[in-house]
């Protein structure tokens, strides 16, 4: 009897789980479809002739006409989109007009550079941003709080392009603390075999510590800059979440019980503030993974941001759509991940 009841119970649970998965998949698919449609339309209403990017300004009219047809531009818009969708579903993102390589290959080349930069950036932003936010909350209204808020405000509002050039001038050109723009010195460029495209990772895995140090001294400045940018946001959010938590009754109770103040702040309050913070950090990370065009330009970082901007300016729509898909996937993925972390961190969500 017991086993039958179990069977029934499982049968009842399975459709519910399957239904949930179907719902998630459907919303993801719809998100992607919408994303592609909007990007595709934007690409087509931009008053730029995509044929020009391929043939240049001097080509004869016959060359122009041939390429126009090769790119499928003679077909109606909905047909072009349908053909594109069919290709995507069969796993083919197409070929870039500009680099003449499959989009998949291009993105596999540029994305690790952005991933590496964004990851180091978000680590810096989180490791510094959360304690600063906590500090500001604890010292609310006092000098420390004001300093943290001003530092955050500058990080949030100063143009990153200007900040980047200034940082290069100070830390690279004057103080010589860090290496200049680019991912690694030419002399180390070929000493590591690229496996993942993540230079720090590859160098560490291959035990090339000199190359690791060099790559690190290249990444630290742009990553700190991106870190500073996300730090500004993370510390501000941490501060307000912490202020809300510190005003809760359980904090007063803990104080009455004589729990050490540091324990109240770092264990009790922060743990509760951590739940919404996960979303904040995940969104900041996703923002950095899109690739920061200006940071990548100033620091000559061959990442996704530069690739997408260049493609967009030249109406290389295959590349733009491919890049949009990747960014969309990152956002959806990180959103699902933070939902998952939510349930792990907050027992109330789990129970529901």
């Amino acid at each position, binding site marked *: 009897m017991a086993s039958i009841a179990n069977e029934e119970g499982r049968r009842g649970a399975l459709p519910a789980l399957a239904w949930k998965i179907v719902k998630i998949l459907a919303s993801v698919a719809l998100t992607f479809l919408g994303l592609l449609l909007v990007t595709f339309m934007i690409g087509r209403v931009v008053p730029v002739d995509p044929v020009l990017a391929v043939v240049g300004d001097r080509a*004869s009219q016959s*060359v122009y006409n041939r390429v126009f047809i090769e790119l499928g531009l003679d077909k109606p818009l909905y047909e072009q989109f349908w053909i594109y969708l069919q290709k995507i579903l069969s796993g083919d993102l197409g070929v870039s007009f500009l680099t003449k*390589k499959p989009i998949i290959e291009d993105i596999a080349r540029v994305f690790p550079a952005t991933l590496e930069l964004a990851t180091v950036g978000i680590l810096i932003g989180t490791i*510094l941003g959360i*304690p600063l936010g906590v500090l500001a909350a604890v010292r609310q209204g006092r000098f420390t709080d004001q300093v943290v808020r001003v530092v955050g405000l500058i990080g949030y509002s100063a143009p990153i392009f200007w900040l980047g*050039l200034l940082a290069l001038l100070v830390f690279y050109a004057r103080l010589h603390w860090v290496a200049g723009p680019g991912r690694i010195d*030419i002399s180390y460029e070929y000493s590591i075999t690229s496996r993942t495209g993540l230079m720090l990772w590859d160098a560490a895995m291959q035990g090339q510590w000199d190359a690791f140090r060099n790559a690190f001294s290249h990444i630290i400045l742009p990553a700190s800059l991106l870190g500073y940018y996300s730090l500004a946001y993370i510390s501000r959010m941490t501060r307000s979440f912490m202020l809300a938590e510190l005003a809760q009754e359980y904090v007063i109770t803990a104080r009455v019980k004589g729990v050490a103040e540091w324990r109240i*702040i770092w264990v009790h309050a922060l743990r509760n503030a951590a739940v919404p913070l996960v979303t904040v950090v995940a969104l900041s990370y996703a923002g950095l993974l899109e690739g920061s065009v200006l940071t990548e330009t100033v620091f000559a970082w061959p990442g996704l941001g530069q690739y997408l901007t260049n493609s967009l300016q030249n109406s290389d729509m295959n590349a733009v759509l491919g890049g949009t898909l990747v960014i969309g996937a990152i956002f959806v993925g990180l959103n699902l991940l933070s939902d998952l972390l939510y349930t792990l961190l907050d027992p109330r969500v789990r129970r529901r």
Partner: protein
Amino acid sequence: MKHLPRLVGAALVASLGLFAPVARAATPPDTLIQAWAIDDIISLDPAEVFEFTASELLGNAYQGLIGYDVKDVSDIFGVIAEKWDISADGMTYTFTIREGMKFASGNPITASDAVFSLRRAVKLDKSPAFILTQFGFTADNVDAMIRQTGPMTFEYQVDKPYAPTLVLYCLTSTVGFIVDEKLAMEHEANGDFGYDWLKTNYAGSGAFTIREWRANEVVVLERNDNYSGPAPEMARVIYRHIPEPATQRLLLEQGDIDIARNVSADSIDALAANSDLAVDSGVKGSIYYLGLNQKNPILAIPEVRQAMKYLVDYATIADTIMKGRVVVHEAFLPLGFLGALEDNPFALNVEKAKELLTAAGYPNGFKVTMDTRNTDEITAIGTAIQQTFALAGIELELIPGDGGQTLTKYRARNHDIYIGRWGPDYQDPHTNADTFARNPDNSDDAASKPLAWRNAWDIPEMTAMADAAVLEADAGKRAQMYLDLQAEHQQTSPFVIMFQEIEVMARRANVQGFVVGPSFNDNSFKAVTK
């Protein structure tokens, strides 16, 4: 509570500790490292290359049949070709290939490679193919017109008795460079003559081989040990994609690169004042001009066109915002070309312009727009022109856009005024006469759309003059024909030709021997020493 500041302090110190000072290393002695915005490269195939950066790469990595002296372009000499003869009717060129030359692959260079390369460029029919097909070659007839006559000889037959220098100069452009037939055909797929492979690979015989191109990142060239000329001192030449001029300058000042290729006009003086650095420049063939669309009835009035030529402050622009980057030049043939007109009859003269506008029926000026590419330089020139136009009451509205946008509009003849930059395609005067002074068909669906067409300037007589100049074999007479053409063009055309470009680069003082030639495939780093 009291732990907090200490914790945060520790975190800050830990993160600062990551910034350990970095040892500064100069660039390796056998490697030339250049910073340049190389995002214009879309192919490495000589049959397709038409962009600045890629042209320069090919100029150092491939060889043509013939070449010219960059200091005196009238001195044409053989490179892969040892000699050539022109038939009495002026239509058949017989080339003899030099003995004993090899491609980088080790394959010998023969007449078969030359014939293959030229036929290939015509049949692939990519953007620069017109430089060859203007002599009457088509995919169908090219096998009969370009024919091998011996192991080291071939004939190149054109359809009219063109001026020999025109035919020869066209063969010096990148589309005429000689490709390793055996190597390319090893990689052929679906009858593409190895095109798919050669877009990102190399099959040439120049001083350097192209080892790697990573789009928007780097190009690496290596010394070609099979090169027939003097061996370059540099074992490796690396182009790094550094889009931002300010970043290039920092890298150069620190010695992390040897040459910065994008130098902004406002930093030339500061760079030249630094004793570790030197600034080199060379006059390029590119022309800055305004195109006045004749579909706009006001701009079609001759007096209005003339007035606009008096409303640009040429000298001030060249001495301030474009200092060191341009020289004033008001004719369509750049200095250094056969028959280039050196007169600059126009200067800012508001009174004269007002008289002309009054005669045209617009004493108080009018409103007009100008499509302006959003680069620093073009925007700055556009703004300066806006101010001087206003002195005569012409209200100029600048419409900013990126290169693709403004060009798309220009090619559709939807602009009022377009501010543009035009570089010659090869070293012969016909290249610019063909676009500024020829418009065989002014209808909207014309087969050829030169700049005169884009500005809807219908000029059957001038077109005939330009066509006649192409067939004149006597260089002296031909030069005079172009001088006459430019003099008339200067006064009557809807083109306000303003400046000729100067290419500027900044280098470390120890880097010697980079040659800045008139066109990008003449820029040479074969003789660079450090």
